[in-house]
């Protein structure tokens, strides 16, 4: 009962609807109650997720079951993990001061979130990706240079007779490339470039498949599955 009371007050304060006389007690409890801090974080994530601009997400239809991995599959995910770290570190240890440059607070926040190792890996990975994507976009030869004539007829794609490195099915056309190195990625990533898509798909054997062209995501996944077999 008492828990419900403080939780309901937290919800009201979140909406800016708590009486001023009650704010102190909620903030006091919040400063020491980690479960309440987490609840507040989750309220914020819920709001952000529900009001997210879907134009930035580009929904992809699938016949599959629900994706329960809500907290681990979108941009808000990182916010979730970082948020928990920041808030809890902040509540516990950081005493902000507005009297001068607060390097200590900045450093602690930074330490809490980004270890050197994590930054190095992320930086290296990002550089590899940037270089790779640059080549895909700017260098037509690059996407033709190691095509090994993979047979994709069982997913409906035929090699264009005139430009042998291009695969075609109806309105879809693309070029592919296989990298022996994994480019530092272990997740599928894709970008939109003009009317074309770039898909980078890490395969089970450590290689990375690059697909570039007019290709929808469902086709890209089917192609990756064929090559991965």
């Amino acid at each position, binding site marked *: 009962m008492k828990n419900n009371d403080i939780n309901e007050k937290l919800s009201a304060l979140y909406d800016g609807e708590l009486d001023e006389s009650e704010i102190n007690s909620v903030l006091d409890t919040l400063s020491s109650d980690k479960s309440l801090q987490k609840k507040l974080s989750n309220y914020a994530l819920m709001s952000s997720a529900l009001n997210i601009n879907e134009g930035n997400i580009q929904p992809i239809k699938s016949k599959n079951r629900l994706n329960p991995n809500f907290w681990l599959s979108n941009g808000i995910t990182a*916010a979730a993990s970082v948020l928990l770290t920041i808030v809890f570190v902040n509540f516990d240890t950081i005493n902000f001061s507005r009297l001068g440059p607060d390097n200590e607070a900045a450093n602690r926040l930074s330490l809490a979130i980004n270890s050197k190792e994590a930054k190095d890996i992320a930086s290296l990975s990002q550089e590899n990706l940037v270089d790779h994507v640059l080549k895909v976009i700017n260098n037509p030869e690059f996407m033709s240079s190691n095509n090994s004539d993979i047979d994709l007829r069982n997913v409906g794609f035929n090699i264009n007779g005139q430009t042998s490195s291009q695969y075609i099915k109806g309105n879809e056309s693309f070029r592919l490339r296989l990298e022996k190195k994994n480019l530092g990625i272990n997740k599928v990533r894709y970008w939109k470039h003009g009317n074309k898509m770039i898909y980078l798909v890490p395969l089970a054997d450590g290689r990375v498949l690059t697909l570039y062209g007019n290709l929808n995501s469902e086709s890209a996944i089917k192609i990756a599955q064929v090559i991965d077999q």
Partner: protein
Amino acid sequence: MKKNNLDEDSLLIHRAQKGDTGAFNFLMTKYYPRVYASLFAFTKSKEDSEDLAQQTFIKVWKKIDSFRGDSAFFTWVYRIAINLAKNHVVSSNYKKDKINISSDAIEMDFASHANPETDLMHSQSLNNVRSFINSLPENLRTAFTLRESDGLSYEEISLITDTPIGTVRSRIFRARESVLEFMSQESTNEK
């Protein structure tokens, strides 16, 4: 269309301006996801967005005295965040600029490629949450969506639904608890 409620955070902002770190922490927690999402939309980089979000809130804390309430608090925070992001792009010779990817470029990470079809349902989980909200009892759903999606105050919701403000407050709270429980179950099922 979500309404901008200029007064929504005024009590907490006023306290933060007086040096109340608890109030500031509350505001930071409330707005961190939206700031992060805005920065991510701008930078397309998780690492940069995290760094910039930290810098944003440190700057907000230092400058909060100068917030006069002429705009919604989040609008003010958003401006700080985006200015930091713009400076970051210029100062760091931001490599993504060189890629010349169009402004509508998108990038999404998936949890793994073991089951890419499932992972590709980036927005499906959001749809699930929205479906769940639609399945809430009508009185909870109405109060919750009027608050979360339309940004109405409890008083406005009270007038619209012809219910006491206390009941509105309780319904919104119960709806939030239900949604959180649903999300938690979804996450547990995945594990």
